[in-house]
């Protein structure tokens, strides 16, 4: 017995078109969860105005004030000897502090994200601590440790080692303040990636180091890059902690932010903003890099930290 039915159409294939359509559906807001046009307009305007007013306006002001007296004055302010030595010191400090924190950040993320152990959340809290400690307090604790009246003060004096009011103190304070940035960027990403890739590499006979260099590192390189950039921007821009330990010695222990403060307090406003504009530029490059990374590698770099 057979059944004969007039066919209208040949059997369809269910390939990409179906998938594409499913994707469209999940990505768009459904009519029900869409706010009305008025509410949208009001909220967008409110948010945009708030951000423009509080965030963008100060940024614009930096460049406006810096260039107000003309381009020649601008460059003169950047090339005078005190400014140059401040720039040099800032670069030196960042060149020491950032690699230290990168090494720590990777080690901490490896231990925390790839292993389970008791007291893990307490450890994470400790790593977050510098976010919540006032930069002035951060500076103070190093003064109490290494200053003339500090715990190790007599010992250091006896051996003619100067930490406070000198470069080592500035580096230490900077390291403290920028301590969590790399770790914080890496931990959520590495936690979400799990340990499967590494386990596969190990079962294929790779050594621990090879596994890290060829499997783990490529997986986290973009988050690491952003962590490094953010850590660097904070390191170069740190003010409160450095201010306490530096002693403000012109041409010797003045970093760029401290130089900005001195110029500003001397009413040398344009020069202050000129130096500030370099730091603002650094911030912009940092944010632009992050935005580009997000555009190319997805919304999240895999790990937008719970707190920065």
């Amino acid at each position: 017995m057979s059944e004969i039915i007039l066919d209208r159409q040949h059997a369809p294939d269910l390939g990409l078109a179906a998938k594409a359509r499913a994707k469209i559906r999940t990505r768009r807001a459904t009519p029900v969860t869409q706010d009305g046009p008025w509410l949208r307009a009001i909220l967008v305007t409110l948010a945009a105005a708030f951000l423009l007013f509080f965030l963008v306006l100060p940024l614009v002001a930096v460049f406006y004030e810096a260039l107000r007296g003309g381009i020649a004055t601008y460059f003169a302010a950047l090339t005078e000897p005190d400014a140059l030595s401040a720039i040099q010191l800032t670069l030196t400090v960042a060149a020491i502090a950032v690699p230290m924190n990168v090494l720590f950040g990777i080690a901490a993320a490896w231990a925390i994200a790839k292993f389970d152990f008791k007291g893990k959340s307490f450890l994470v809290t400790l790593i977050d601590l510098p976010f919540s400690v006032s930069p002035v307090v951060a500076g103070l604790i190093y003064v109490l440790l290494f200053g003339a009246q500090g715990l190790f003060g007599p010992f250091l004096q006896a051996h003619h080692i100067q930490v406070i009011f000198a470069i080592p103190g500035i580096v230490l304070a900077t390291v403290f303040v920028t301590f969590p940035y790399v770790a914080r960027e890496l931990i959520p990403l590495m936690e979400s990636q799990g340990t499967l890739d590494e386990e596969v590499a190990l079962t294929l006979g790779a050594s621990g180091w090879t596994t890290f260099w060829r499997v783990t590192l490529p997986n986290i390189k973009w988050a690491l890059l952003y962590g490094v950039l953010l850590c660097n921007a904070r390191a170069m821009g740190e003010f409160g902690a450095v201010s306490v330990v530096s002693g403000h010695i012109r041409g010797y222990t003045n970093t760029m932010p401290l130089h900005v403060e001195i110029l500003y307090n001397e009413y040398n406003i344009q020069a202050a903003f000129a130096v500030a504009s370099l730091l603002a530029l650094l911030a912009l490059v940092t944010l632009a890099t992050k935005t580009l990374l997000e555009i190319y590698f997805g919304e999240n770099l895999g790990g937008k930290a719970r707190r920065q």
Partner: protein
Amino acid sequence: MLSSLRRPSILPGFGFAFGITLAYLGLIVLLPLSALVLRASGLGVSGLWAIATEPRVLAALKVSFGLALAAATVNAVFGTIVAWVLVRYEFPGRRLLDAAVDLPFALPTAVAGIALASIYAPNGWVGSLVAPLGWKIAFTPLGIAIALVFVGLPFIVRTIQPVLLDLESDVEEAAATLGASRLRTLLQVVLPVLVPAILTGFALAFARGVGEYGSVIFIAGNLPFVSEIAPLLIVVKLEGFDYTGATAIATLMLGAAFLVLLAVNLIQAVARRRLGNV
């Protein structure tokens, strides 16, 4: 000993990485902090109390804590709106605004400080607009609050954003099929789920505001009893070689920071227990 602390894994390097982490944490963070605690313990509770209740210290603590609270409140409201708009709406310039939210993380505080001071000074862009009304922003507590709003905003927005992204739209649709109006859905279904994130962001912004120094001192005016913040008073005491006074204030602020961290962890734990991952 380490192996008894952790669950077994075939991945190597735990001891090495864990060792580096602990050593570094100990040397950079814990040792210096314990120097502070050690010094403060010499004062005793009564000594701490005596310094904390000095009129000038008390006034500075009030300014720092009070304005940090006010700024965190402003940020809780606007930060929630900003996060909602950035996650839920598609509009030109969205990416730019999203990037701008991180600005306070990346812009050095001193730079932000002089920029805010110049905008809100009586002859600045905004200051000159309100000056005819007899209002003064820079060099008053209001100026401090504005600086604290600036530094605190990303904490709130960046804490709420991931929660909003994870929030499935089907919950809102379910409320609609059950007859709830959009407003009711937003208030009774969406907002309660955001509360832990808002509180966490609030606490973080508050902690940051209490300790903030660089962006505040340029706009504050730094008038004792009126617009002098606690961190500045630490610096003032240090410059006068009053290490004891500085230590006392710093200890109080460190205690507050610890309390905030504790509160954040508590909020997260309660939220995880109550909401789970449904």
